[in-house]
């Protein structure tokens, strides 16, 4: 994307004031976004993002700058200006760049730039028809199609020089159901690290049908009772609870500064023996996967919690310095606009022994959370909250009436201790995770899980 000699000059300029590490991240991204509403394609935009991020370390100081000026003069100037922030004089020098060839582990069949818009539109209209035909109470359907091809070049003063192309595609479907007085919504948004073949092969009857079914079901739902209940969380996107409740607390971003309840606890028991928690950026074609992270490190399978024992964290190059540890291929950024930091990729709870039927049958009076909305966590305290988009009461070992407006709150470390059943039906769900280095595609996953007790907030009272 940019001549090697220019990159070398920029890396050198970045070290001119004594920094001990410099890095260049060049990004050239093509993106498409098409919106359908009311049965009509009403919005379509495409574009090209292009920019360069330059990073310099000096001990525990982290300097970052970015620009859209790609001239050699502009880049060297930007690097020198950033370098002025470094006050302590070291003697950083750059190693000769060694080009590394990436063997892609994620096969792409239909590259977005070879696909005509009309093909994208055909799928969107088909999904719209399926959702609308589901039930006469489906009142509005919104469908958003996005894809992107992100080309990155990462080079650093240690001699790393690597290029990669990431391709992602997603179809997000939102439905609104109405009974005349009320409006309720349903959502499903499958996505993958894949080309248009993923969209073409999607089982639209399943996904669009589910988006419609959730909205209609919620029209018929009672208010959710509040109080403490055993909560059964279904597989796939249900994993968002552990993404918030413990995933963020295992990121070096908070661990390195002791702002996490999991800091300094490697080797300790943090969960029951049935819980194994893994972050794996290498799963072929999954939404959160990567060949290399945004520092150019190969992604890997990181076991964070094994049979309840804390085994590791997600670590980026900079926080590795503070922690005196190795980076784990977990450094990510939304774009060149963001200084990268440790983030999740595809995070999931490993499958256990129980069948979903056994878990429900074993629950006398509880809540079954079939589909989750999103949530958030305060990483310093571990206090989390998240919304359930489709929930049911569980009575005497059977799924009972649907309920709406359920919010789960609690503390991540404590909730983790209360997992008492783990199912055998692992599934992954696609989501977007917002944190310090921007909004990123991540998978959350799990089999069906039961937590013996969670505080459920609802409108109905106890």
């Amino acid at each position: 994307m940019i001549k090697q000699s220019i990159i070398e000059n920029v890396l050198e300029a970045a070290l001119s004031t004594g920094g001990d590490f410099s890095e260049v991240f060049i990004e050239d991204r093509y993106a498409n976004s098409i919106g359908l509403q009311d049965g009509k394609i009403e919005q379509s935009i495409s574009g090209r993002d292009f920019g360069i991020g330059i990073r310099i370390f000096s001990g525990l100081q982290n300097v970052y700058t970015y620009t859209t000026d790609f001239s050699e003069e502009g880049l060297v100037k930007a690097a020198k200006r950033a370098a002025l922030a470094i006050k302590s004089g070291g003697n950083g020098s750059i190693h000769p760049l060694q080009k590394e060839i990436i063997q892609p582990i994620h096969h792409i069949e239909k590259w977005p730039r070879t696909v005509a818009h009309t093909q994208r539109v055909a799928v969107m209209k088909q999904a719209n028809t399926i959702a609308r035909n589901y039930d006469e109470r489906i009142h509005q359907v919104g469908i958003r199609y996005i894809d992107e091809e992100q080309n990155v070049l990462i080079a650093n003063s240690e001699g790393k020089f690597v290029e990669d192309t990431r391709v992602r595609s997603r179809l997000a479907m939102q439905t609104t159901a109405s009974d005349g007085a009320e409006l309720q919504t349903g959502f499903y948004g499958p996505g993958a690290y894949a080309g248009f073949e993923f969209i073409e092969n999607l089982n639209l009857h399943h996904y669009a049908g589910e988006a419609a079914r959730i909205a209609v079901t919620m029209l018929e739902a009672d208010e959710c009772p509040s109080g403490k209940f055993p909560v059964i969380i279904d597989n796939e996107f249900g994993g968002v609870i552990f993404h918030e409740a413990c995933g963020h607390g295992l990121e070096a971003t908070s661990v390195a500064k002791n702002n996490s309840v999991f800091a300094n606890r490697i080797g300790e028991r943090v969960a029951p023996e049935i819980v194994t928690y893994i972050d794996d950026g290498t799963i072929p074609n999954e939404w959160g996967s990567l060949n290399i992270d945004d520092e150019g490190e190969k992604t890997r399978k990181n076991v964070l919690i094994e049979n309840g024992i804390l085994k590791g964290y997600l670590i980026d190059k900079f926080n590795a310095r503070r922690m005196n540890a190795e980076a784990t291929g977990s450094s990510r950024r939304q774009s060149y606009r963001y200084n990268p930091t440790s983030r999740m990729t595809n995070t999931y709870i490993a499958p256990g022994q129980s069948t979903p039927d056994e878990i429900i049958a074993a629950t006398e009076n509880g809540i079954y959370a079939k589909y989750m909305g999103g949530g958030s966590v305060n990483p310093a305290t571990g206090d989390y909250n998240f919304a359930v988009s489709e929930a049911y009461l569980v009575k005497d070992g059977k799924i009972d009436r649907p309920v709406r407006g359920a919010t789960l709150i609690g503390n991540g470390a404590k909730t983790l201790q209360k997992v008492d059943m783990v199912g055998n039906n692992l599934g992954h769900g696609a989501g977007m995770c917002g944190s310090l280095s921007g909004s990123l595609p991540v998978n959350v996953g799990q089999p069906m899980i039961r937590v013996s007790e969670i505080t459920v907030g609802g409108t109905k009272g106890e």
Partner: protein
Amino acid sequence: MLKNNEFQSKLLAEAKNAGFSEAEIYYEKSSSFHCTIFEGAIDSYETAEEGGIGFRGLYNGKMGYAYTEKVDDDSIAFLIHQAKENASILDEDDGTTIFEGSEQYNTHSFYNEALANVPNEEKIALIQSIEKKVLAYDPRIVTLNYCVIQDFSTERAIANDKGLSIDEKRNGLVVFVSAVAKDGEEMKTGSAVKMTRDFNSIDADVFTKEVAEEALSHLGEQSIPTKKYPVVMRHDASASLLSTFSPIYSAENTQKDQSLLKGKVGQTIASSAYTLVDDPSHPDSLRGTNFDGEGVATKKQTIVSEGKLETLFHNRKTAQKDGVETTGHARKSSYKGTLSVAPINLYIAPGLKSKEDLIASIQDGVLITGLAGLHSGANTISGDFSVAATGFHIQDGQITAPVKQMTIAGNYFDYLKQIEEVGADLEFSPGGYGSPSLLVKELSVTVDH
């Protein structure tokens, strides 16, 4: 790049040749500085310069969009090709056109030259002194999980082939600090934010006290029964709820059956204590502007007047559909965005009573000081919300203790009718939403036991 007349005229001319009947270019260029401090040292130091070009044009009566951040000789062909393909798949000519310009524009300034000249060293010194003061404030303050100073400076311009050519500059500075307070096993965070265009207006001692007291005040949590309580929604919590539910006032949403305010203009939708105003030049917000995303002059407007819905937010397209005038609420999030509808500086008009007066009127209730999980726990279409909250128990008109983790739940359309009184303490959030503290008749409160 900004006002690059040669590029501009070339792109507009090429667009005409390619069959676009109308065309517009939207430019943005900005620079920013961001610094975080950790234990006295600079933890991260970021500077940025960026910009891009958004193009849109009418092709066979349909509006196609494209953008690029790589501005070179090839980008004109890229923009035109992409915009054409995007226009081609749109289902119908919806009447959108490029705007020739308003007759008159306000001339408010949103740029402070003095702020632009403050050296980064001075900003760093200020945030370092704040970190030091917060850590020294009380031994129970154990660390800061965020200690940030940042500023920005943005220029944007719209130019089109109907003769419109307008531009604007804006800058601002934001300080954000979050402190972690610990007492035994109990750990709480508290934060404060200050936005300004006047660097000298930041008093480190006042700011320190605000952050530290906020974190410390949450220590000593207690549980209270789960039930419905009267609530004082503090200004910041109220502003975040307003921000979440502001899409209900968008005509784009009513027209798509995505807002229950459809057909409600002229009707009472809130209590008589509630007046909602959008003021594009409000001095307490950093988001002001003299023109909206399609170049329409902005003006101060009352959206809800003493409970009565006066107008929705419109851009030119939604206004045409509803047969009204645009309200100047076309939103273009950046050159990378298409046009939508959104407020600029939306706030609940302040009343006369202090927050303490509102608290004094409650026998057994809750003061809510923060909300979390609004992006997932609040449904702007149904109005239902159920979100995590932080706050205090109020007994006999006094704050008694911080409450353990809780959720509050209700329906926003009912909530608007339950607002009994509005306080005098209007403050804006960084997102451009403002509110005073509100006294709300009742909300369902669930508390962790």
